C-alpha cells in the first residue's frame, strides 16, 4: 500500500479532495525526507567523509560532531548575492537549476523506501525512474549553454556527451533486471528479490539481484558513477580544467539548487541500486526504512571515497569506456541474462 492511500484512509472524509490532500501530504513527506538527507550530506557528511579520507578534522563546532553546521551553512548559501552574467539567456538560465533538482526529486516518487513510505507504484515504475532522471541532461545543456560562458559551454557539452554514453548501458542493465523479475513495477521488483535464493542451514540468502548477477551489479555501479558525475567520471565539472563546468556562472540560491540537484542525484542513484540490486528496504531485524537509508548512504560513501582516491579520466577516455567497453559488456550481460532466464523458464 502506498503512502497517499494510507493517508487517505486515515482522513475522516473521502472523495477527490481527500485524494488530492493525501497525495500532496505524501509528496511533501517524501520530498522533505529526501531533502533532509541531502541537507545532511552536502554541508556536513561530505565534509566529514572527505576529512576522514585526508586525515583532517573538519566541522566540529556546532552540535554533536558538528552536524549543526547545516543551519549556518544554509543561511550563508541563500543570503549570498545572486550574480547574473551579462548576456545570459534568461528563462533558460533560470530554469536550469530547477530542472536539475526536480528531475532527481521526481524520480523518488516511485522508489519504495520501506514501511509503507512509497509515493506511487505505477506498472512502469523502472521506466519512469530512468526517463525522469535523464531529464537532468536537459538541465545540464540549458545551464551550459545559457550561461554565456565558455567554460560553462565546454562543461555542458561534456555533460551531454557523458550522459549519452552512460545512460544507454544503465538502461540495458536495468532491462536485464526486468527480464529476471518479469515486471517493471517497483514493488514487484522488490518482492521478487525477497524470495530465498539458497538456504545455508539457518541462514537463507535472499535473491537480491546483486547476488544473483554480481556482474550486472558492478557494471551498474560504474555506469551510475558516471551518471551522477563523480570521480573518476567528473569531467563535466572538472574544477582544475574548466573551472566548474556548467555551474561556473551560478551563485547564491541557484548554486544551492544545482548543488542540491547533484546530491539528490547521488541519492537517487543509490536508491535505484538499492531497489533493483539490493532488495530495496529488505534486511533483517531493523525496520525497512532504516535498511533503505543505510543502503543509499553506503552508495553516497562510495562516491565520496572514489572522489578522494581515484583520478579523473580524460574526456576521450571517458567516452571510450562508455561506448566501447561498458555498452558492449551491458549487451553481453543482457543476452546472458536473457538466455539464463529463458532456459530456467523452459
Amino acid at each position, binding site marked *: 500500500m502506498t503512502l497517499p492511500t494510507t493517508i487517505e484512509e486515515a482522513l475522516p472524509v473521502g472523495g477527490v479532495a481527500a485524494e488530492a490532500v493525501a497525495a500532496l501530504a505524501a509528496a511533501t513527506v517524501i520530498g522533505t525526507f529526501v531533502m533532509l538527507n541531502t541537507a545532511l550530506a552536502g554541508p556536513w557528511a561530505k565534509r566529514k567523509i572527505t576529512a576522514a579520507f585526508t*586525515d583532517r578534522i573538519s566541522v566540529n563546532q556546532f552540535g554533536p560532531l558538528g552536524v549543526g553546521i547545516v543551519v549556518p551553512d544554509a543561511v550563508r548559501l541563500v543570503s549570498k548575492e545572486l550574480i547574473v552574467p551579462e548576456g545570459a539567456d534568461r528563462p533558460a538560465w533560470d530554469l536550469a537549476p530547477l530542472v536539475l533538482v526536480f528531475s532527481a526529486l521526481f524520480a523518488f516518487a516511485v522508489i519504495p523506501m520501506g514501511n509503507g513510505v512509497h509515493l506511487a507504484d505505477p506498472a512502469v515504475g523502472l521506466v519512469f525512474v530512468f526517463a525522469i532522471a535523464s531529464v537532468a541532461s536537459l538541465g545540464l545543456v540549458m545551464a551550459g549553454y545559457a550561461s554565456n560562458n565558455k567554460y560553462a559551454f565546454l562543461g555542458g557539452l561534456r555533460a551531454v556527451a557523458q550522459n549519452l554514453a552512460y545512460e544507454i548501458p544503465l538502461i540495458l542493465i536495468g532491462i536485464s533486471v526486468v527480464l529476471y523479475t518479469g515486471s517493471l513495477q517497483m514493488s514487484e521488483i522488490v518482492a521478487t528479490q525477497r524470495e530465498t535464493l539458497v538456504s545455508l542451514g539457518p541462514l537463507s540468502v535472499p535473491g537480491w539481484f546483486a547476488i544473483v548477477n554480481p556482474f550486472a551489479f558492478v557494471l551498474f555501479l560504474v555506469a551510475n558513477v558516471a551518471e551522477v558525475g563523480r570521480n573518476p567520471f567528473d569531467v563535466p565539472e*572538472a574544477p*582544475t580544467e574548466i573551472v566548474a563546468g556548467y555551474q561556473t556562472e551560478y551563485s547564491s540560491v541557484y548554486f544551492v539548487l544545482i548543488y542540491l540537484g547533484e546530491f539528490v542525484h547521488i541519492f537517487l542513484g543509490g536508491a535505484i541500486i538499492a531497489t533493483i540490486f539490493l532488495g530495496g528496504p529488505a534486511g533483517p531485524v531493523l525496520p525497512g526504512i532504516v535498511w533503505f537509508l543505510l543502503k543509499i548512504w553506503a552508495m553516497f560513501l562510495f562516491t565520496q571515497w572514489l572522489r578522494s582516491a581515484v583520478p579523473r*579520466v*580524460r574526456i576521450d*577516455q571517458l567516452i571510450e569506456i562508455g561506448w566501447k567497453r561498458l555498452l558492449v559488456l551491458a549487451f553481453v550481460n543482457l543476452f546472458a541474462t536473457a538466455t539464463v532466464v529463458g532456459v530456467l523458464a523452459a
Partner: protein
Amino acid sequence: MSLQRQPVGETPDGLDYDALAELLDGYVLDREQHLNCEAFVIRPDDVAAVLSTLRDRAAFDHLSLVTAQEYRDRYESIYHLKKYDDPTQELSLVVPTPRDQPHSQSGADVFDTAIWHEREAYDLVGIEYDDHPDLRRILLPETWQGHPLSLDYNQDKPQIVPLREHANPMEGRTDVADRSDTMFINIGPHHPATHGVLHLKTVVDGEQVVDIDPDIGYLHRCEEQMCQQSTYRHQIMPYPDRWDYVSAGILNEWAYARAAESLADIDVPVYAQVLRTMSAELCRICAHLLAIGTFALDIYGEFTAIFMYAVTDRERIQNLLEELTGQRLMFNYLRLGGVAWGLPEPRAEYLETVRSVMAEFPDRLEEYHNLLTSNELFQMRVLDTGVLPAETAKSYGATGPVARGSGIDYDLRRDDPYGYYDELDWEVVTDDGGDNFSRALVRLQEMEQSARIVRQCVDVLADWSGEREIQSDVPRTVKPGGEVYRAVEGAKGELGIYIRADGTDTPARFKIRSPAFSNLQTLEVLAEGEYIADMIATLGSLDIVLGEVDR
C-alpha cells in the same frame, strides 16, 4: 650534430679558449675575462652564426641565459653558454650594440629558449632583436612606455594608458585566425589550475588545444632592480626567498650566496656548508612535495587525499626548517660566508628529530607511489602525454626535474659541485619517458635522494668534533668588481645569477636566470595538439611558480 667528432676546445683539463677563438676566427673582436669563464666579444650581426657554430662544433648545447644591460656608451647582450654534459665548461658571448641604434641579431633560430629571454631583454632593457619571431613585451603590459632597466628611464613618469588601449586587454591575439570550428579561451589569470597568476591564451578545437600562448608578468615585482639598489652584504639576501616562494627559499638564497661569494672571493667554512646542504635539501623536499600535491590536484580534482597528505608531510619538514631558521616561508637563513645561525639548542635533540622525520620519509613516499605512480588510472592519464623529447628540452634550456624527466642527466649539485654535495653519497635521478609521468616520478625519487643527503648531513653534524664555525670573516661592506654568472640546482632547475660589479657596494646589473621561466616556455610545444585536461596536467608537471617566472 655531425658524427662523433671531438668538440672543439675540449681538453682533459678544462676548456681551451684559444681553440674556441680559433674556431670563431673572424668573429671574435675581443676577449674578456669574466670570473666564471672567458667572454668573446662579437658583432651584433654575427650572433646566429656564432651560436650555431658553437653548438654544432663545440658542443655548447645549453643557452643558459641571455642578459641585457646598458652602459653609458653602449648596450650589451650576453649569451651565457654551457654544456649539458659538463656545465663547468662555460663561454659567454658579449654582443655590444651602439646606444643610438640598439639592434642585434636574434639567437632564436639556434636556441628556442632565446625567444623568451630576448623578449625579456627587449622589454626591460630595450634592445631590439632583428629576425626575432615574436618580439613583444613579455613581463610588462603591451601598453608600457619605456624600458625600466635602461639608464635614461624616468621612474617618476606615470604610466598613462588611454582607455581605448584597455578596451579588451584579453582579446584574441594568438597566431591562429578565428575560425568557426575553433574557440579562443582565456585560461587564467584566475583559474584553479594555473598555480598562480598565469594567463594562457588558448585556442581550442573542441577539446583539443590548437594554440597556446602563455602570458606572464602578473607577478613581476622588479626583483632584479630591487637587488640592483641593495647592498651585497645584507640587503639582497632576503629577496631570493621571494622568487620561488613555495618552500624553496634556501635553495634560492644559495644561488645569490654562490654568485656573490665567488664575486667577492669569500670562503665558506665547511661546517656552514653542511648546514647549507642540509637545509637546502629540506627545502627541496618541501618544494617537490607541493609540486606532487598540486599535480595530483590537477589530475584527481579538488578533493583528492594526496594533496592533503603532501601538505601534512611538508608540514613536518617545515617545522624542522622553522626551528632551524626561525621562519616558515621567508627563511633568510644564508649569509655571505656562511649561515645566520647554527643548530638550535639542544642540538642533539634537534638532530634526533630530523633523523626520525627522515627515517619515516621513505615509508611516506611509498604511499605516494601507491596512490600515484602505481595507480593504473593515473598511468592512463599521464603516460605518453605532454612528451618533451630531450633535444627539444635542450633547445628550450629546460633544467631540473623537467630535463631529468626527459632523460637529460644534468644536475648542478653533481656536475658543478658546490656546498658539501661532493662529499656525500647520493644519485642523480633521470627517466627517459619525457612525459608527465616521468616528471612526477623523477620528483618522487629525488625526494628520496634528498632525504638520503639530509640523513648523511645529520650524521656529519652529530659527529662534528672541530670548531662549529658558521660564518667566515666578511668585511662589513663588500665592494667587489668584475662579472660573474653562477648557478645552483634550485627546486625547479638551474637557478643562476649574473652580477656585474662596478666597485660600489651595490650591483650594477643583477640578472636572475629563473629555471621555471625556461621550463614554462616548453608548454607551447608540449600542449599543442593535446586535450585541455592533458595541457593542465602538463602545466602541473612543469611545476612552475609564478613568483620565480615573473620575478
